[in-house]
């Protein structure tokens, strides 16, 4: 662990990523207790104002304070990212570890199913799900989670298969430990770094996907503040208040950049040979 900290001090990308992530999470935490203005306070007299000392990032088409809404929007992004990656990761890791331990038809069926899901572009899965189940933050989370399952299943399967051929795992098998016990005690702890790095990258992908879905009106519904939705509203007023279209997008870009840099940094620091999946 001390070696990790020492090496991380020399990794500039990792540090930038960590600072951006702290800023992102910190903003969300602060917004739980304080925002410059109440997020949903409508003040039509003050609509579409440019930046000023009162409203640092201006006001939107309903006179709401943009900075306050961006701060609370960070909560939405984090919630969607955490829950969708959490669901996708737990199911995907379980399935991938099962396929690696069991082999045979389980492995074959799982690989073919994930091929099938990858044949649909992610946005389309999300659109299909939300078009049938209705547009809401919950269904956006579900759609993103569905796409995350095969990503984690594939990465877990590959890493676990490599572990199963190692001597210490063979020794455990020879000692009579069952496949479940070996997976839990030996395989998963040894592939944890791959999974952590992949989870960081998927978190970034989830935030991008949520922003895209809300931009299309298929994610979080008003009045829940969401960065994608803010961009959608801002575009209508692009000639009157061009600034409005800048801030929420910058927020998405910085949050995603932070997670991506952190993920790449973690990969270098934990295990430079890791192979990652990058699908969006």
């Amino acid at each position, binding site marked *: 662990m001390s070696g990790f900290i020492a090496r991380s001090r020399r990794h500039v990308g990792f540090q930038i990523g960590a600072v951006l992530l702290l800023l992102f999470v910190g903003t969300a935490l602060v917004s739980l207790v304080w925002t410059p203005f109440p997020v949903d306070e409508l003040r039509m007299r003050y609509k579409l104002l440019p930046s000023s000392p009162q409203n640092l990032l201006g006001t939107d088409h309903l006179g709401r304070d943009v900075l306050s809404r961006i701060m609370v929007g960070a909560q939405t992004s984090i919630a969607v990212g955490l829950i969708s990656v959490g669901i996708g990761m737990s199911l995907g890791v379980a399935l991938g570890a099962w396929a690696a331990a069991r082999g045979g038809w389980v492995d074959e069926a799982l690989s073919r199913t994930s091929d099938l899901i990858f*044949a*649909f572009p992610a*946005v*389309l899965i999300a659109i299909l799900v939300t078009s049938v189940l209705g547009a809401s933050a919950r269904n956006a989370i579900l759609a993103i989670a569905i796409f995350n399952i095969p990503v984690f299943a594939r990465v877990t399967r590959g890493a676990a298969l490599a572990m199963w051929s190692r001597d210490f795992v063979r020794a455990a098998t020879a000692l009579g430990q069952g496949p479940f016990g070996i997976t839990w005690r030996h395989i998963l702890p040894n592939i944890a770094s791959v999974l952590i790095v992949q989870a960081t990258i998927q978190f970034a992908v989830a935030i*991008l996907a949520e*922003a895209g879905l809300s931009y299309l009106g298929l994610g979080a519904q008003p009045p829940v503040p969401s960065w994608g939705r803010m961009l959608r509203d801002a575009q209508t007023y692009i000639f009157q208040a061009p600034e409005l279209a800048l801030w*929420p*997008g910058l927020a998405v870009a910085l949050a995603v950049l932070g997670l991506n840099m952190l993920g790449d940094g973690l990969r270098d620091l934990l295990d430079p040979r890791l192979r990652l999946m*990058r699908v969006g």
Partner: protein
Amino acid sequence: MLDFLSRRFAAALVTLALATVVVFAVVEVLPGDPALVMLGTEARPDTLAALRAQYGFDQPLPVRYLHWIGGLLSFDLGNSHAYGTPVAKLIGDRLAVTLPLGALALSWAVLVAVPLGVLAAWKHGTAGDWGVMGFTQIGISVPNFWFGIVLVLLFAVTWQVFPSGGFPGWRQDPRGSVVALVLPALALSLSEIAILTRVTRSAMLDTLREDYVRTARAKGAPERVVLFRHALRNALIPVTTVAGLIAGFLIAGAVIIESVFRLPGVGQLVYDSINNRDLVVIKNVVVLFTILVLAVNLLVDVAYVLLDPRPRVAA
């Protein structure tokens, strides 16, 4: 070689068949009563019954599925509920916008990314390499629809050299139509440029370490020839694979970008069909996207075989 390709083709057909089952299940079985989804809960019973009869929703599931597949094979997809026109014609008209948009974005991405990647690999470890890598990190982090909005802010609102959106139509105004696709293609290509640059760079780093590159340099071949004829030629194999994968994502990314620029493409059609709850259009468009993705993957396999003789034997 033919054996390898025909096996790939068969695998793609199986995937496609499974995909149609999934789409059918999600669109027509999962919601319970598709007629109710399309008309809403406040619809009158006789209107519901009429719609069920019109689309055959009152028939058993296997019959409905086979009827749809039969229609797909004969390009008779039925009529759109919202537009009242044949779905096949509707999709065909929209493809005339989406396919050129995707092609423009992909060509632009390849034209920018390959030289950038070669440059970064050639100047490995220098400030130029760091700059290119930093750019790719930003490129994959910026949402492409926001980049589109920023392009509109710059080129349509501030300088007014490009339209902020809309599409005049190929027949009415061919030149205006090309101009209308420039900003959307730029926006669409940003993350693809970033990914392709990274792939080109790492593939070039691999080939530049090969013995034949050292031999070429030892023979006194000019650096330009070494880079482009010896190293890049072999680095192109992984680049082609990723370019193909990306082409699939471009098609999907078009859904959002067309919405930003109000282009009447397939993406807009999907979006409008969701709002109109036009399930007939949605299920066919999703299958069409899947066919496009699979077709592109097959094309990649063909390119693979042409570029690299090894899989011809190995598979």
